[in-house]
């Protein structure tokens, strides 16, 4: 007898939604931590190319770049697939959320739309960035400077940087309020903290891009 799944006809209680939500949050939190560490590595070039090279060499020698890099790339794709369950894809849903956001004048609703939009940018540009860096190891300040100064790459990073920082900042805020780790009384303060954090990271990122742009190669 061939196996016919009776759950087609009678809904079975399922834990899937919960597991997927856990995974979405955990991959998101992991990527937030990664992006913060990433900023420390890249911005170290402002202290001198040698500082960045030393840190990069450490990740190279410990195989964290060779092994960790692809894992981060895969985590990003997994996080996209999980979070995409919530993103409106049909034109009906997209129209509904757009009209809704325009009507409501509500910051957190707009932030969610920004999160969904930047997600698409990061999916494409982040993948290109990861591919380029990982197929051209080891990471050095000179190579990064060369890339930023070549062709379209400078503009590429000027677009990717704010998208990533907004997505990370909003995601950080959203995880904390969504999972009840920050209560009603702490929400305003967290919001302010998130704004400052995002602003500071974009500023450091801009300084770093300018540094790569002006680094003699």
């Amino acid at each position, binding site marked *: 007898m061939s196996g016919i799944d009776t759950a087609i006809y009678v809904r079975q209680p399922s834990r899937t939604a*919960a597991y997927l939500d856990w995974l979405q949050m955990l991959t998101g939190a992991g990527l937030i931590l990664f992006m913060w560490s990433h900023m420390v590595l890249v911005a170290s070039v402002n202290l001198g190319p040698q500082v960045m090279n030393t840190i990069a060499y450490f990740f190279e020698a410990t195989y964290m770049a060779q092994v960790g890099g692809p894992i981060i790339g895969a985590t990003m794709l997994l996080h996209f697939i999980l979070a995409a369950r919530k993103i409106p894809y049909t034109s009906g849903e997209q129209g509904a959320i757009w009209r809704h956001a325009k009507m409501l*004048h509500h910051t957190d609703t707009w932030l969610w739309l920004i999160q969904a939009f930047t997600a698409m940018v990061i999916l494409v540009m982040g993948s290109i960035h990861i591919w380029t860096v990982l197929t051209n190891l080891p990471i050095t300040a000179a190579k990064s400077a060369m890339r930023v100064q070549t062709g379209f790459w400078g503009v590429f990073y000027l677009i990717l940087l704010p998208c990533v920082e907004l997505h990370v900042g909003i995601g950080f805020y959203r995880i904390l*309020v969504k*999972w009840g780790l920050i209560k009603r009384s702490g*929400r305003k303060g967290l919001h302010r903290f998130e704004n400052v954090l995002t602003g500071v990271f974009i500023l450091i990122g801009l300084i770093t891009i300018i540094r790569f742009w002006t680094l003699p190669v």
Partner: protein
Amino acid sequence: MSRQLIFNIFRYNPQDPGSLPRTDTFILEETPSMTLFIALNRIREEQDPSLQFDFACRMAICGSCGMVINGRPGLACKTLTKELPAEITLMPLPVFKLVGDLSVDTGTWFRTTNTKIQSWIHTDQEFDPAVVEERMENDLANAIFELERCIECGCCVAACGTANMREDFVGAFALNRIARFMLDPRDQRSEAEYFEVVGTDQGVFGCMGLLACEDVCPRELPLQDQLGILRRKMGFISLKSLFKPKARAAS
């Protein structure tokens, strides 16, 4: 001199095939302590008797006068005109079925959702009217009452991005309601039974955390906290069954 208020009000009668959705403008002189309840009744009495809207208690208890006030869902009876600019736009609550103009049918939605989440005390105890009611700690009674204050006005649902996109999402109202039963010792439902009702993408895991519900609730229910607590509780229930495969059979 008092302000001249300009009201832009959504007009449409779905019952009338000749009716087209439009906005009508009414001008009214503001009076002291004027609420939208007072303003709308004056417009209906003095300017247009065909204007449809719902009211019952005029004191934020009945939940019938929910509408979109300058873009934000709120109760008309609780909104003072002096808190608003001189130009006021009134629209019916989205998500719910439109009865006509500002009047929507929240009843059917709440009835359906309450049935879906089994919004009643589940107990096998026989009710005995002769016995004195069981006592409850005061703190617990207060905690339950805090969540019981919901008046089913529909503002949280109308303000919810998910509910606007996806018809089957139960909304903050229902999740708050389940949180209330989970507190209640008289409800004998198990963790797994609660999970079955709201541990889904139509329940707490469908919530995207936009928190407009929290920001518009006219009763200021602690929706942010309740949604967070419920998500964590349901999340941990799912993990428990992951580590104890046998417990799964019980559900």
